[in-house]
Protein backbone atom coordinates (compact mmCIF):
# COMPACT_ATOMS: atom_id res chain seq x y z
CA UNK A 1 0.00 0.00 0.00
CA UNK A 2 1.38 3.36 -0.99
CA UNK A 3 2.10 5.97 1.61
CA UNK A 4 -0.11 8.51 -0.13
CA UNK A 5 -3.08 6.16 0.18
CA UNK A 6 -2.34 5.72 3.84
CA UNK A 7 -2.43 9.44 4.37
CA UNK A 8 -5.86 9.90 2.88
CA UNK A 9 -8.63 10.12 5.38
CA UNK A 10 -12.22 9.58 4.41
CA UNK A 11 -15.09 11.92 4.99
CA UNK A 12 -15.52 10.61 8.50
CA UNK A 13 -17.08 7.61 10.13
CA UNK A 14 -20.54 7.06 8.76
CA UNK A 15 -22.51 6.69 5.63
CA UNK A 16 -21.23 7.74 2.25
CA UNK A 17 -24.43 8.71 0.52
CA UNK A 18 -25.11 7.49 -2.96
CA UNK A 19 -26.46 10.61 -4.62
CA UNK A 20 -23.41 11.24 -6.79
CA UNK A 21 -22.72 10.26 -10.40
CA UNK A 22 -21.90 6.79 -9.11
CA UNK A 23 -25.66 6.26 -9.18
CA UNK A 24 -28.00 4.35 -6.97
CA UNK A 25 -26.54 1.87 -4.55
CA UNK A 26 -26.29 -1.72 -5.65
CA UNK A 27 -27.07 -2.90 -2.17
CA UNK A 28 -29.04 -1.00 0.43
CA UNK A 29 -29.25 -2.24 3.99
CA UNK A 30 -31.72 -0.30 6.11
CA UNK A 31 -31.83 -0.43 9.91
CA UNK A 32 -31.16 -4.14 9.78
CA UNK A 33 -31.03 -6.13 12.98
CA UNK A 34 -30.33 -9.77 13.58
CA UNK A 35 -30.72 -11.43 16.94
CA UNK A 36 -30.80 -15.05 18.01
CA UNK A 37 -32.99 -15.16 21.11
CA UNK A 38 -31.09 -12.95 23.60
CA UNK A 39 -27.97 -12.43 21.60
CA UNK A 40 -27.95 -9.41 19.27
CA UNK A 41 -25.48 -9.82 16.42
CA UNK A 42 -26.05 -6.41 14.95
CA UNK A 43 -28.71 -3.76 15.26
CA UNK A 44 -29.51 -0.62 13.34
CA UNK A 45 -27.15 -1.58 10.57
CA UNK A 46 -27.47 0.71 7.56
CA UNK A 47 -25.19 0.41 4.58
CA UNK A 48 -25.30 1.58 0.98
CA UNK A 49 -22.90 -0.21 -1.31
CA UNK A 50 -22.15 1.77 -4.45
CA UNK A 51 -21.27 0.25 -7.80
CA UNK A 52 -17.61 -0.71 -7.82
CA UNK A 53 -17.20 -0.22 -4.10
CA UNK A 54 -15.06 -2.62 -2.10
CA UNK A 55 -16.24 -3.05 1.47
CA UNK A 56 -14.30 -5.19 3.89
CA UNK A 57 -16.26 -6.69 6.75
CA UNK A 58 -14.21 -7.31 9.87
CA UNK A 59 -15.10 -8.63 13.28
CA UNK A 60 -14.52 -11.40 15.74
CA UNK A 61 -15.81 -14.94 15.32
CA UNK A 62 -19.54 -15.00 15.95
CA UNK A 63 -19.99 -11.28 15.38
CA UNK A 64 -22.42 -12.00 12.57
CA UNK A 65 -20.25 -11.40 9.51
CA UNK A 66 -21.35 -14.53 7.73
CA UNK A 67 -24.93 -14.05 8.87
CA UNK A 68 -24.92 -10.67 7.15
CA UNK A 69 -23.94 -12.36 3.89
CA UNK A 70 -26.61 -15.02 4.44
CA UNK A 71 -29.19 -12.27 4.95
CA UNK A 72 -28.12 -10.61 1.71
CA UNK A 73 -28.39 -13.98 -0.03
CA UNK A 74 -31.95 -14.27 1.26
CA UNK A 75 -31.09 -17.30 3.35
CA UNK A 76 -31.37 -15.60 6.72
CA UNK A 77 -34.45 -13.73 7.88
CA UNK A 78 -33.69 -10.38 9.54
CA UNK A 79 -35.12 -9.61 12.96
CA UNK A 80 -35.98 -6.16 11.66
CA UNK A 81 -35.08 -3.82 8.85
CA UNK A 82 -34.68 -4.69 5.20
CA UNK A 83 -32.13 -5.31 2.50
CA UNK A 84 -32.56 -4.31 -1.12
CA UNK A 85 -30.57 -5.26 -4.18
CA UNK A 86 -30.89 -2.74 -7.02
CA UNK A 87 -34.04 -1.36 -5.46
CA UNK A 88 -35.84 -4.64 -4.78
CA UNK A 89 -35.95 -6.75 -1.64
CA UNK A 90 -33.36 -9.51 -1.74
CA UNK A 91 -34.57 -13.00 -2.57
CA UNK A 92 -33.03 -16.41 -2.55
CA UNK A 93 -31.12 -17.43 -5.65
CA UNK A 94 -30.68 -14.00 -7.20
CA UNK A 95 -28.38 -14.39 -10.19
CA UNK A 96 -26.97 -10.90 -9.72
CA UNK A 97 -25.12 -11.94 -6.58
CA UNK A 98 -21.92 -13.93 -6.80
CA UNK A 99 -20.76 -15.89 -3.77
CA UNK A 100 -17.34 -17.20 -2.80
CA UNK A 101 -17.52 -19.44 0.26
CA UNK A 102 -15.02 -20.04 2.97
CA UNK A 103 -12.26 -22.22 1.66
CA UNK A 104 -13.16 -25.80 2.44
CA UNK A 105 -11.05 -28.32 0.64
CA UNK A 106 -13.00 -30.41 -1.85
CA UNK A 107 -12.09 -34.02 -1.11
CA UNK A 108 -10.14 -36.27 -3.44
CA UNK A 109 -12.28 -38.54 -5.52
CA UNK A 110 -15.00 -35.97 -6.09
CA UNK A 111 -16.19 -36.50 -9.67
CA UNK A 112 -15.63 -32.95 -10.76
CA UNK A 113 -12.94 -31.15 -12.71
CA UNK A 114 -12.16 -27.48 -12.29
CA UNK A 115 -14.24 -26.65 -15.30
CA UNK A 116 -17.27 -28.43 -13.84
CA UNK A 117 -17.06 -26.46 -10.62
CA UNK A 118 -17.17 -23.25 -12.63
CA UNK A 119 -20.03 -24.53 -14.76
CA UNK A 120 -22.24 -24.77 -11.67
CA UNK A 121 -22.07 -20.99 -11.61
CA UNK A 122 -23.63 -20.84 -15.07
CA UNK A 123 -26.62 -23.14 -14.76
CA UNK A 124 -26.16 -25.46 -11.78
CA UNK A 125 -29.46 -24.24 -10.37
CA UNK A 126 -31.53 -25.08 -13.42
CA UNK A 127 -33.64 -28.21 -13.68
CA UNK A 128 -32.86 -30.92 -16.18
CA UNK A 129 -29.66 -31.48 -18.05
CA UNK A 130 -27.95 -28.86 -20.15
CA UNK A 131 -29.36 -29.22 -23.64
CA UNK A 132 -29.50 -25.82 -25.31
CA UNK A 133 -26.67 -23.30 -25.24
CA UNK A 134 -23.85 -25.76 -24.66
CA UNK A 135 -21.36 -23.89 -26.81
CA UNK A 136 -22.21 -20.52 -25.26
CA UNK A 137 -21.92 -21.95 -21.75
CA UNK A 138 -18.59 -23.55 -22.59
CA UNK A 139 -17.27 -20.27 -23.93
CA UNK A 140 -18.35 -18.36 -20.82
CA UNK A 141 -16.82 -20.96 -18.56
CA UNK A 142 -13.56 -20.87 -20.48
CA UNK A 143 -13.49 -17.07 -20.32
CA UNK A 144 -14.10 -17.07 -16.56
CA UNK A 145 -11.36 -19.65 -16.05
CA UNK A 146 -8.99 -17.63 -18.20
CA UNK A 147 -9.78 -14.47 -16.22
CA UNK A 148 -8.62 -16.06 -12.96
CA UNK A 149 -5.58 -17.66 -14.57
CA UNK A 150 -6.81 -21.19 -13.94
CA UNK A 151 -6.62 -22.54 -17.48
CA UNK A 152 -3.62 -24.74 -16.79
CA UNK A 153 -5.40 -26.80 -14.13
CA UNK A 154 -9.06 -26.43 -15.08
CA UNK A 155 -9.26 -29.95 -16.47
CA UNK A 156 -7.74 -31.68 -13.47
CA UNK A 157 -9.94 -33.28 -10.82
CA UNK A 158 -10.76 -30.56 -8.31
CA UNK A 159 -9.93 -32.87 -5.40
CA UNK A 160 -6.30 -33.01 -6.51
CA UNK A 161 -5.86 -29.23 -6.61
CA UNK A 162 -4.39 -27.13 -3.83
CA UNK A 163 -6.58 -24.90 -1.68
CA UNK A 164 -5.41 -21.83 -3.54
CA UNK A 165 -6.19 -23.34 -6.91
CA UNK A 166 -9.62 -24.43 -5.74
CA UNK A 167 -10.28 -20.93 -4.49
CA UNK A 168 -9.29 -19.43 -7.84
CA UNK A 169 -11.83 -21.70 -9.48
CA UNK A 170 -14.42 -20.66 -6.93
CA UNK A 171 -13.76 -17.06 -7.85
CA UNK A 172 -14.37 -17.95 -11.50
CA UNK A 173 -17.53 -19.79 -10.44
CA UNK A 174 -18.82 -16.68 -8.70
CA UNK A 175 -17.88 -14.36 -11.55
CA UNK A 176 -19.13 -16.45 -14.46
CA UNK A 177 -22.71 -15.26 -13.96
CA UNK A 178 -21.52 -11.64 -14.20
CA UNK A 179 -22.77 -10.50 -10.79
CA UNK A 180 -23.30 -6.87 -9.78
CA UNK A 181 -22.44 -7.77 -6.21
CA UNK A 182 -19.83 -10.22 -5.05
CA UNK A 183 -20.05 -11.68 -1.55
CA UNK A 184 -16.87 -13.24 -0.23
CA UNK A 185 -17.12 -15.21 3.00
CA UNK A 186 -13.56 -15.47 4.32
CA UNK A 187 -12.26 -16.78 1.02
CA UNK A 188 -8.66 -16.40 2.16
CA UNK A 189 -8.73 -18.33 5.41
CA UNK A 190 -6.38 -21.31 5.44
CA UNK A 191 -4.66 -20.21 2.24
CA UNK A 192 -0.97 -19.51 2.31
CA UNK A 193 0.18 -15.91 1.95
CA UNK A 194 0.98 -16.13 -1.73
CA UNK A 195 -2.50 -17.44 -2.57
CA UNK A 196 -4.20 -15.02 -0.18
CA UNK A 197 -2.75 -12.16 -2.16
CA UNK A 198 -3.49 -13.66 -5.55
CA UNK A 199 -7.16 -14.38 -4.74
CA UNK A 200 -7.52 -10.93 -3.17
CA UNK A 201 -6.03 -9.40 -6.32
CA UNK A 202 -8.48 -11.28 -8.53
CA UNK A 203 -11.43 -9.93 -6.59
CA UNK A 204 -10.15 -6.37 -6.43
CA UNK A 205 -9.34 -6.36 -10.13
CA UNK A 206 -12.88 -7.45 -10.91
CA UNK A 207 -14.14 -4.69 -8.65
CA UNK A 208 -12.08 -2.02 -10.38
CA UNK A 209 -12.43 -3.15 -13.97
CA UNK A 210 -16.07 -4.23 -14.05
CA UNK A 211 -17.52 -2.03 -11.36
CA UNK A 212 -18.64 -5.11 -9.42
CA UNK A 213 -19.38 -4.18 -5.83
CA UNK A 214 -17.71 -6.38 -3.25
CA UNK A 215 -18.51 -7.30 0.32
CA UNK A 216 -15.43 -9.06 1.59
CA UNK A 217 -15.63 -10.83 4.93
CA UNK A 218 -12.24 -11.54 6.43
CA UNK A 219 -10.34 -11.95 9.67
CA UNK A 220 -7.30 -10.24 8.33
CA UNK A 221 -7.64 -7.04 6.37
CA UNK A 222 -4.06 -6.94 5.18
CA UNK A 223 -4.42 -8.83 1.88
CA UNK A 224 -7.26 -6.48 0.87
CA UNK A 225 -6.15 -3.31 2.66
CA UNK A 226 -5.04 -1.51 -0.49
CA UNK A 227 -8.31 -2.11 -2.35
CA UNK A 228 -10.68 -1.54 0.57
CA UNK A 229 -12.87 1.55 0.16
CA UNK A 230 -14.67 1.17 3.45
CA UNK A 231 -14.56 -1.10 6.45
CA UNK A 232 -17.60 -2.45 8.23
CA UNK A 233 -16.46 -3.54 11.67
CA UNK A 234 -18.83 -5.72 13.67
CA UNK A 235 -18.32 -6.34 17.36
CA UNK A 236 -20.50 -7.34 20.27
CA UNK A 237 -23.79 -6.12 18.79
CA UNK A 238 -22.28 -2.80 17.65
CA UNK A 239 -20.77 -1.83 14.37
CA UNK A 240 -18.70 0.87 12.71
CA UNK A 241 -18.50 1.91 9.10
CA UNK A 242 -15.84 4.07 7.54
CA UNK A 243 -12.57 4.18 5.67
CA UNK A 244 -9.79 1.89 6.90
CA UNK A 245 -7.94 4.89 8.30
CA UNK A 246 -10.98 6.02 10.25
CA UNK A 247 -11.81 2.65 11.68
CA UNK A 248 -8.49 0.93 12.20
CA UNK A 249 -7.37 3.19 15.02
CA UNK A 250 -6.69 2.33 18.62
CA UNK A 251 -9.16 4.84 20.01
CA UNK A 252 -11.97 3.91 17.60
CA UNK A 253 -11.68 0.16 18.10
CA UNK A 254 -11.19 0.56 21.85
CA UNK A 255 -14.48 2.41 21.98
CA UNK A 256 -16.18 -0.19 19.78
CA UNK A 257 -15.00 -3.10 21.91
CA UNK A 258 -15.18 -1.05 25.13
CA UNK A 259 -11.84 -2.44 26.14
CA UNK A 260 -8.32 -1.28 25.30
CA UNK A 261 -7.41 -2.35 21.78
CA UNK A 262 -4.16 -1.47 20.12
CA UNK A 263 -3.89 -0.93 16.38
CA UNK A 264 -0.35 -0.88 15.12
CA UNK A 265 1.07 -0.43 11.66
CA UNK A 266 4.02 -2.70 11.06
CA UNK A 267 5.54 -1.85 7.73
CA UNK A 268 2.54 -1.66 5.44
CA UNK A 269 0.47 -4.05 7.52
CA UNK A 270 -2.20 -3.33 10.07
CA UNK A 271 -2.10 -5.33 13.28
CA UNK A 272 -4.95 -5.32 15.78
CA UNK A 273 -3.95 -6.44 19.27
CA UNK A 274 -6.20 -7.08 22.22
CA UNK A 275 -9.57 -7.31 20.52
CA UNK A 276 -11.73 -9.75 22.54
CA UNK A 277 -12.29 -13.19 20.97
CA UNK A 278 -9.88 -12.20 18.29
CA UNK A 279 -7.77 -15.31 18.27
CA UNK A 280 -6.56 -14.72 14.80
CA UNK A 281 -3.00 -15.89 14.31
CA UNK A 282 -2.64 -13.89 11.10
CA UNK A 283 -2.36 -10.71 13.07
CA UNK A 284 0.51 -11.95 15.11
CA UNK A 285 2.54 -13.51 12.37
CA UNK A 286 5.78 -11.92 11.43
CA UNK A 287 5.59 -11.20 7.77
CA UNK A 288 8.54 -10.89 5.46
Amino acid at each position, binding site marked *: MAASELGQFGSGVGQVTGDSAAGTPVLRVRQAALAFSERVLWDGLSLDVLPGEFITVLGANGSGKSSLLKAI*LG*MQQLTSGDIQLCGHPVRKGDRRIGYIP*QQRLIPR*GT*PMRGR*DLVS*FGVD*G*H*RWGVRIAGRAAARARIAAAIESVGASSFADKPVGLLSGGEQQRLRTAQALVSDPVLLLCDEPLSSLDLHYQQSVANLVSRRCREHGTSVLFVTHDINPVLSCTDRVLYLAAGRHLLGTPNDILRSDVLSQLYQTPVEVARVGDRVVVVGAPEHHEPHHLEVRQ
Partner: protein
Amino acid sequence: MILLDADPWWTRILNFDDYGRLLGLVQYSLLAAVILGVVGGVIGVFVMQRDMAFAVHGISELSFAGAAAALLAGGSVVAGSLAGSLVASLAIGLLGAKARDRNSTIGVLMPFGLGLGILFLALYEGRASSKFGLLVGQIISVDGPQLGWLIGVCTLSLGLLLVMWRPLMFDSLDPDVAAARGVPDKVVSLAFMLTLGMVVSVAVQIVGALLVLALVVTPAASALRVSSSPVVVPALAAGFGVLAAVGGILLALGGALPISPYITTISFLTYLVCRGVGSRSRVSAGSSGPVAS
Protein backbone atom coordinates in the same frame (compact mmCIF):
# COMPACT_ATOMS: atom_id res chain seq x y z
CA MET B 1 -22.92 -84.81 -22.07
CA ILE B 2 -20.06 -86.91 -20.81
CA LEU B 3 -20.41 -85.87 -17.22
CA LEU B 4 -24.15 -85.95 -17.17
CA ASP B 5 -24.51 -88.97 -14.92
CA ALA B 6 -21.77 -87.74 -12.61
CA ASP B 7 -23.58 -84.40 -12.29
CA PRO B 8 -20.61 -82.50 -10.83
CA TRP B 9 -21.19 -79.48 -8.62
CA TRP B 10 -20.10 -76.95 -11.18
CA THR B 11 -23.00 -77.75 -13.47
CA ARG B 12 -25.13 -76.28 -10.75
CA ILE B 13 -23.14 -73.06 -11.00
CA LEU B 14 -22.60 -72.81 -14.73
CA ASN B 15 -24.69 -74.80 -17.18
CA PHE B 16 -25.46 -73.75 -20.70
CA ASP B 17 -27.71 -76.62 -21.80
CA ASP B 18 -30.88 -75.48 -23.52
CA TYR B 19 -29.53 -71.94 -23.31
CA GLY B 20 -31.45 -70.53 -26.28
CA ARG B 21 -34.79 -71.68 -24.94
CA LEU B 22 -34.09 -70.31 -21.47
CA LEU B 23 -32.98 -66.99 -22.92
CA GLY B 24 -36.34 -66.61 -24.64
CA LEU B 25 -38.06 -67.02 -21.30
CA VAL B 26 -36.17 -64.29 -19.53
CA GLN B 27 -36.08 -61.54 -22.12
CA TYR B 28 -38.21 -59.21 -20.03
CA SER B 29 -36.13 -59.93 -16.98
CA LEU B 30 -33.13 -58.91 -19.05
CA LEU B 31 -34.84 -55.69 -20.05
CA ALA B 32 -35.56 -54.95 -16.39
CA ALA B 33 -31.93 -55.72 -15.58
CA VAL B 34 -30.67 -53.33 -18.24
CA ILE B 35 -32.77 -50.45 -16.96
CA LEU B 36 -31.98 -51.21 -13.32
CA GLY B 37 -28.29 -51.44 -14.18
CA VAL B 38 -28.38 -48.00 -15.75
CA VAL B 39 -30.40 -46.27 -13.06
CA GLY B 40 -28.64 -48.06 -10.19
CA GLY B 41 -25.25 -47.09 -11.55
CA VAL B 42 -26.24 -43.48 -12.10
CA ILE B 43 -27.97 -42.97 -8.76
CA GLY B 44 -25.02 -44.65 -7.08
CA VAL B 45 -22.82 -41.72 -8.03
CA PHE B 46 -25.08 -39.42 -6.04
CA VAL B 47 -25.32 -41.95 -3.23
CA MET B 48 -21.52 -41.90 -2.96
CA GLN B 49 -21.27 -38.13 -3.09
CA ARG B 50 -24.03 -37.65 -0.54
CA ASP B 51 -22.53 -40.34 1.68
CA MET B 52 -25.68 -42.44 1.69
CA ALA B 53 -24.53 -46.03 1.26
CA PHE B 54 -25.84 -46.83 4.71
CA ALA B 55 -29.17 -45.24 3.81
CA VAL B 56 -29.43 -47.55 0.82
CA HIS B 57 -29.02 -50.52 3.11
CA GLY B 58 -31.59 -49.15 5.54
CA ILE B 59 -34.13 -48.53 2.80
CA SER B 60 -33.66 -52.01 1.40
CA GLU B 61 -34.44 -53.63 4.76
CA LEU B 62 -37.73 -51.75 5.03
CA SER B 63 -38.42 -52.55 1.43
CA PHE B 64 -37.95 -56.20 2.38
CA ALA B 65 -40.42 -55.80 5.24
CA GLY B 66 -42.96 -54.27 2.84
CA ALA B 67 -42.50 -57.07 0.35
CA ALA B 68 -42.82 -59.72 3.06
CA ALA B 69 -46.01 -58.07 4.33
CA ALA B 70 -47.42 -58.13 0.81
CA LEU B 71 -46.46 -61.77 0.41
CA LEU B 72 -48.24 -62.64 3.64
CA ALA B 73 -51.32 -60.60 2.74
CA GLY B 74 -51.42 -62.09 -0.73
CA GLY B 75 -50.83 -58.72 -2.38
CA SER B 76 -48.30 -57.62 -4.96
CA VAL B 77 -44.77 -58.09 -3.74
CA VAL B 78 -43.55 -55.30 -6.02
CA ALA B 79 -46.09 -52.86 -4.58
CA GLY B 80 -45.27 -53.95 -1.04
CA SER B 81 -41.57 -53.49 -1.53
CA LEU B 82 -42.12 -50.11 -3.18
CA ALA B 83 -44.31 -48.97 -0.28
CA GLY B 84 -41.73 -50.09 2.29
CA SER B 85 -38.98 -48.33 0.36
CA LEU B 86 -40.84 -45.06 0.05
CA VAL B 87 -41.76 -45.00 3.74
CA ALA B 88 -38.13 -45.61 4.68
CA SER B 89 -36.68 -43.07 2.28
CA LEU B 90 -39.21 -40.46 3.36
CA ALA B 91 -38.42 -41.11 7.03
CA ILE B 92 -34.68 -40.91 6.44
CA GLY B 93 -35.08 -37.83 4.26
CA LEU B 94 -37.25 -36.00 6.78
CA LEU B 95 -35.59 -37.05 10.01
CA GLY B 96 -31.96 -36.94 9.06
CA ALA B 97 -30.73 -33.87 7.27
CA LYS B 98 -27.32 -34.12 8.86
CA ALA B 99 -25.22 -37.20 8.30
CA ARG B 100 -25.04 -38.07 11.99
CA ASP B 101 -28.81 -37.76 12.55
CA ARG B 102 -29.38 -39.69 9.39
CA ASN B 103 -27.16 -42.57 10.39
CA SER B 104 -28.81 -42.92 13.76
CA THR B 105 -32.24 -42.83 12.12
CA ILE B 106 -31.15 -45.57 9.74
CA GLY B 107 -29.55 -47.56 12.50
CA VAL B 108 -32.89 -47.54 14.32
CA LEU B 109 -35.04 -48.26 11.28
CA MET B 110 -32.96 -51.02 9.78
CA PRO B 111 -33.22 -53.76 12.41
CA PHE B 112 -36.87 -52.91 12.92
CA GLY B 113 -37.55 -53.38 9.21
CA LEU B 114 -35.58 -56.59 9.02
CA GLY B 115 -37.31 -57.92 12.14
CA LEU B 116 -40.75 -57.11 10.74
CA GLY B 117 -39.86 -58.79 7.48
CA ILE B 118 -38.72 -61.94 9.24
CA LEU B 119 -41.93 -61.98 11.27
CA PHE B 120 -44.06 -61.76 8.12
CA LEU B 121 -42.05 -64.45 6.39
CA ALA B 122 -42.35 -66.73 9.41
CA LEU B 123 -46.12 -66.31 9.31
CA TYR B 124 -46.26 -66.92 5.55
CA GLU B 125 -47.00 -70.49 4.60
CA GLY B 126 -46.42 -70.40 0.85
CA ARG B 127 -43.41 -71.40 -1.20
CA ALA B 128 -40.15 -71.22 0.67
CA SER B 129 -38.29 -69.96 -2.42
CA SER B 130 -40.43 -66.82 -2.41
CA LYS B 131 -39.27 -66.14 1.11
CA PHE B 132 -35.63 -66.70 0.36
CA GLY B 133 -35.90 -64.72 -2.87
CA LEU B 134 -36.72 -61.48 -1.11
CA LEU B 135 -33.46 -61.59 0.78
CA VAL B 136 -31.16 -62.87 -1.94
CA GLY B 137 -32.87 -62.17 -5.26
CA GLN B 138 -35.38 -63.81 -7.52
CA ILE B 139 -35.68 -61.86 -10.77
CA ILE B 140 -36.25 -64.92 -12.90
CA SER B 141 -39.28 -65.84 -10.85
CA VAL B 142 -40.80 -62.37 -11.25
CA ASP B 143 -43.06 -62.45 -14.26
CA GLY B 144 -45.62 -60.71 -16.41
CA PRO B 145 -47.31 -57.60 -15.05
CA GLN B 146 -45.00 -57.50 -12.03
CA LEU B 147 -42.04 -57.23 -14.32
CA GLY B 148 -43.81 -54.45 -16.18
CA TRP B 149 -44.07 -52.61 -12.87
CA LEU B 150 -40.37 -53.01 -12.19
CA ILE B 151 -39.51 -51.64 -15.61
CA GLY B 152 -41.96 -48.76 -15.17
CA VAL B 153 -40.59 -47.79 -11.73
CA CYS B 154 -37.01 -47.90 -13.03
CA THR B 155 -37.85 -45.77 -16.05
CA LEU B 156 -39.68 -43.26 -13.89
CA SER B 157 -36.74 -42.94 -11.51
CA LEU B 158 -34.36 -42.47 -14.41
CA GLY B 159 -36.65 -39.69 -15.68
CA LEU B 160 -36.72 -38.05 -12.24
CA LEU B 161 -32.94 -38.16 -12.04
CA LEU B 162 -32.66 -36.43 -15.40
CA VAL B 163 -35.15 -33.75 -14.37
CA MET B 164 -33.20 -32.87 -11.23
CA TRP B 165 -29.79 -33.57 -12.74
CA ARG B 166 -28.07 -30.19 -12.45
CA PRO B 167 -29.37 -29.03 -9.06
CA LEU B 168 -28.81 -32.52 -7.66
CA MET B 169 -25.24 -32.57 -8.96
CA PHE B 170 -24.66 -29.04 -7.64
CA ASP B 171 -26.16 -29.89 -4.26
CA SER B 172 -24.21 -33.15 -4.01
CA LEU B 173 -20.81 -31.82 -5.02
CA ASP B 174 -20.85 -28.25 -3.74
CA PRO B 175 -23.66 -27.91 -1.19
CA ASP B 176 -22.67 -24.58 0.39
CA VAL B 177 -22.58 -22.66 -2.85
CA ALA B 178 -25.61 -24.52 -4.19
CA ALA B 179 -27.67 -23.26 -1.24
CA ALA B 180 -26.31 -19.74 -1.66
CA ARG B 181 -27.20 -19.84 -5.35
CA GLY B 182 -30.80 -20.70 -4.57
CA VAL B 183 -30.86 -24.44 -5.23
CA PRO B 184 -33.86 -25.65 -3.19
CA ASP B 185 -31.80 -28.10 -1.19
CA LYS B 186 -34.65 -29.55 0.86
CA VAL B 187 -36.78 -30.22 -2.20
CA VAL B 188 -33.85 -31.70 -4.06
CA SER B 189 -32.78 -34.00 -1.26
CA LEU B 190 -36.30 -35.24 -0.58
CA ALA B 191 -36.92 -35.87 -4.27
CA PHE B 192 -33.61 -37.67 -4.39
CA MET B 193 -34.52 -39.85 -1.41
CA LEU B 194 -37.84 -40.85 -2.97
CA THR B 195 -36.15 -41.68 -6.25
CA LEU B 196 -33.55 -43.68 -4.37
CA GLY B 197 -36.40 -45.51 -2.62
CA MET B 198 -37.90 -46.47 -5.97
CA VAL B 199 -34.61 -47.73 -7.34
CA VAL B 200 -33.90 -49.71 -4.18
CA SER B 201 -37.33 -51.36 -4.26
CA VAL B 202 -36.62 -52.64 -7.76
CA ALA B 203 -33.12 -53.75 -6.84
CA VAL B 204 -34.56 -55.69 -3.90
CA GLN B 205 -36.62 -57.71 -6.38
CA ILE B 206 -33.59 -58.54 -8.46
CA VAL B 207 -30.66 -59.05 -6.10
CA GLY B 208 -32.52 -59.25 -2.82
CA ALA B 209 -32.59 -56.92 0.16
CA LEU B 210 -29.23 -57.98 1.51
CA LEU B 211 -27.30 -57.33 -1.68
CA VAL B 212 -28.77 -54.13 -3.05
CA LEU B 213 -25.48 -52.30 -2.57
CA ALA B 214 -23.92 -54.46 -5.30
CA LEU B 215 -26.11 -52.69 -7.86
CA VAL B 216 -26.52 -49.28 -6.27
CA VAL B 217 -23.08 -48.55 -4.82
CA THR B 218 -20.41 -50.82 -6.30
CA PRO B 219 -20.78 -49.71 -9.96
CA ALA B 220 -20.49 -46.06 -8.98
CA ALA B 221 -17.61 -46.75 -6.62
CA SER B 222 -15.84 -48.54 -9.47
CA ALA B 223 -16.44 -45.70 -11.90
CA LEU B 224 -15.17 -43.14 -9.39
CA ARG B 225 -11.88 -45.04 -9.31
CA VAL B 226 -11.15 -44.43 -12.96
CA SER B 227 -12.62 -41.04 -13.79
CA SER B 228 -13.38 -37.63 -12.32
CA SER B 229 -15.67 -36.31 -15.00
CA PRO B 230 -19.29 -35.73 -13.94
CA VAL B 231 -20.33 -37.08 -17.32
CA VAL B 232 -18.01 -40.06 -17.64
CA VAL B 233 -18.52 -41.31 -14.07
CA PRO B 234 -22.33 -41.75 -14.31
CA ALA B 235 -21.97 -43.21 -17.81
CA LEU B 236 -19.37 -45.74 -16.68
CA ALA B 237 -21.35 -46.55 -13.55
CA ALA B 238 -24.41 -47.23 -15.70
CA GLY B 239 -22.32 -49.49 -17.92
CA PHE B 240 -20.92 -51.40 -14.95
CA GLY B 241 -24.42 -51.71 -13.50
CA VAL B 242 -25.74 -53.22 -16.74
CA LEU B 243 -22.73 -55.52 -16.97
CA ALA B 244 -23.36 -56.86 -13.47
CA ALA B 245 -27.15 -57.16 -13.71
CA VAL B 246 -27.37 -58.60 -17.21
CA GLY B 247 -24.20 -60.63 -16.90
CA GLY B 248 -25.49 -62.07 -13.64
CA ILE B 249 -28.75 -63.18 -15.19
CA LEU B 250 -27.04 -64.68 -18.23
CA LEU B 251 -24.62 -66.70 -16.11
CA ALA B 252 -27.23 -67.76 -13.59
CA LEU B 253 -29.68 -68.90 -16.23
CA GLY B 254 -28.61 -72.48 -16.64
CA GLY B 255 -27.46 -73.14 -13.10
CA ALA B 256 -29.61 -73.95 -10.13
CA LEU B 257 -28.42 -71.16 -7.85
CA PRO B 258 -29.86 -67.76 -7.02
CA ILE B 259 -28.85 -64.95 -9.30
CA SER B 260 -27.24 -62.71 -6.71
CA PRO B 261 -23.84 -64.35 -6.31
CA TYR B 262 -23.27 -63.89 -10.01
CA ILE B 263 -24.23 -60.23 -9.86
CA THR B 264 -22.22 -59.49 -6.75
CA THR B 265 -19.18 -61.31 -8.14
CA ILE B 266 -19.22 -59.43 -11.44
CA SER B 267 -19.76 -56.21 -9.55
CA PHE B 268 -16.87 -56.90 -7.22
CA LEU B 269 -14.52 -57.97 -10.01
CA THR B 270 -15.34 -54.76 -11.88
CA TYR B 271 -14.42 -52.83 -8.78
CA LEU B 272 -11.11 -54.65 -8.41
CA VAL B 273 -10.20 -53.99 -12.03
CA CYS B 274 -11.14 -50.32 -11.71
CA ARG B 275 -9.11 -49.99 -8.54
CA GLY B 276 -6.11 -51.44 -10.31
CA VAL B 277 -6.55 -49.21 -13.34
CA GLY B 278 -7.20 -46.20 -11.14
CA SER B 279 -4.13 -46.61 -8.95
CA ARG B 280 -1.94 -47.16 -12.01
CA SER B 281 -3.16 -43.99 -13.71
CA ARG B 282 -2.82 -42.08 -10.47
CA VAL B 283 0.76 -43.23 -10.13
CA SER B 284 1.58 -42.11 -13.66
CA ALA B 285 -0.19 -38.81 -13.06
CA GLY B 286 1.87 -38.40 -9.91
CA SER B 287 5.17 -39.01 -11.71
CA SER B 288 4.38 -36.29 -14.22
CA GLY B 289 4.40 -33.94 -11.26
CA PRO B 290 1.72 -33.27 -8.69
CA VAL B 291 -0.11 -29.98 -8.68
CA ALA B 292 2.33 -27.22 -7.91
CA SER B 293 1.42 -24.78 -5.25
